[in-house]
């Protein structure tokens, strides 16, 4: 597990237990995407899907790039209300969508030496698999 380049986890309200299948996305990414194909700027991506109640003020969106370890760490929020009503496939689609949205934040985080555009394009192909 420590050698995986994509590590995805979740923070969620207990009533949503079982709805956020991070492993399915993580397995697909690690199988089909090689970060080195897009440059040397990013070697690892840690992504956390957050599905907490609207009243929760502890967990906010976060995004940072560790230039020393070339690791992107990101925690982005899903819409709690939508996750509640969606089925498993619907939530999976939302999670993929959020991951793709996260890629747009790379430039603002100071990521260098990484072709975000090609990365995003290839991620979209994986989503369709």
């Amino acid at each position, binding site marked *: *597990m*420590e050698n995986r380049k994509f*590590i995805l*986890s*979740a*923070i*969620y*309200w*207990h009533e949503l*237990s*079982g709805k*956020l299948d*991070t*492993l399915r996305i993580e397995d697909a990414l690690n199988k089909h995407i090689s970060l080195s194909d897009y440059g040397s700027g990013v070697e690892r991506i*840690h992504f*956390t899907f957050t599905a*907490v*109640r609207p*009243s*929760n*003020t*502890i*967990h906010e969106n*976060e*995004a*940072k*790039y*560790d*230039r020393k370890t070339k690791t992107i*760490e990101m*925690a982005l929020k899903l819409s709690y209300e939508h996750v509640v009503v969606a089925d498993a496939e619907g939530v999976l689609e939302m999670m993929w969508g959020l991951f793709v949205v996260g890629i747009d934040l790379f430039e*603002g*985080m*100071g990521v*260098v030496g990484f072709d975000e555009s090609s990365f995003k394009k290839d991620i979209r192909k994986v989503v369709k698999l």
Partner: protein
Amino acid sequence: MITLNYLFTFQEKKVSSPKDKFLEPPPNPFFKIFVGIVVIIFLVMAKKPFLEYDKNGIPRLASWRIEKMEKEIKDFDGAEQYALRARTNGWYPCYSCTDTTHIYLYIGQVWKYGITTKGEKGRYGKSNQKLSLNYEIQYEGDLAECLKQERLKIYSYALLPENLARKKPLIRPPGNKNDS
């Protein structure tokens, strides 16, 4: 949270001639300036008076102290009790095991119960990902209630089916070093 790394100039490694190979690369001047500013701010804050006096000479807390106190008290109102659950099947550190350092957990099984407040939320981040854990919020409320819930859960863990199914049930979750 955006890191400040983009403030520093990225320096390419210089190709040095053989006679220069023992020379250290020049230090980044911006880093020294940044450290200097941080030290100055720290010294100024350390010396900042914590008491103020009104026109009658009656002491009161300095406004910055009041703000800090109110923020910390407010953080106690918004606490949560959580469970860290195995994200993947595998071996996890076991602090409550008597004869081994690691325990095999299946997806969804509890590794630890804990509480956090807004001021502490950074505690779990990297370690969760490193240990392959998901963070499940089980209770939201004030700090006292969350502490009670945490205590209840830690003690009740011994009776969880996933624990009773083991040859040697644990007294508390693998990731909890003690009962509090």
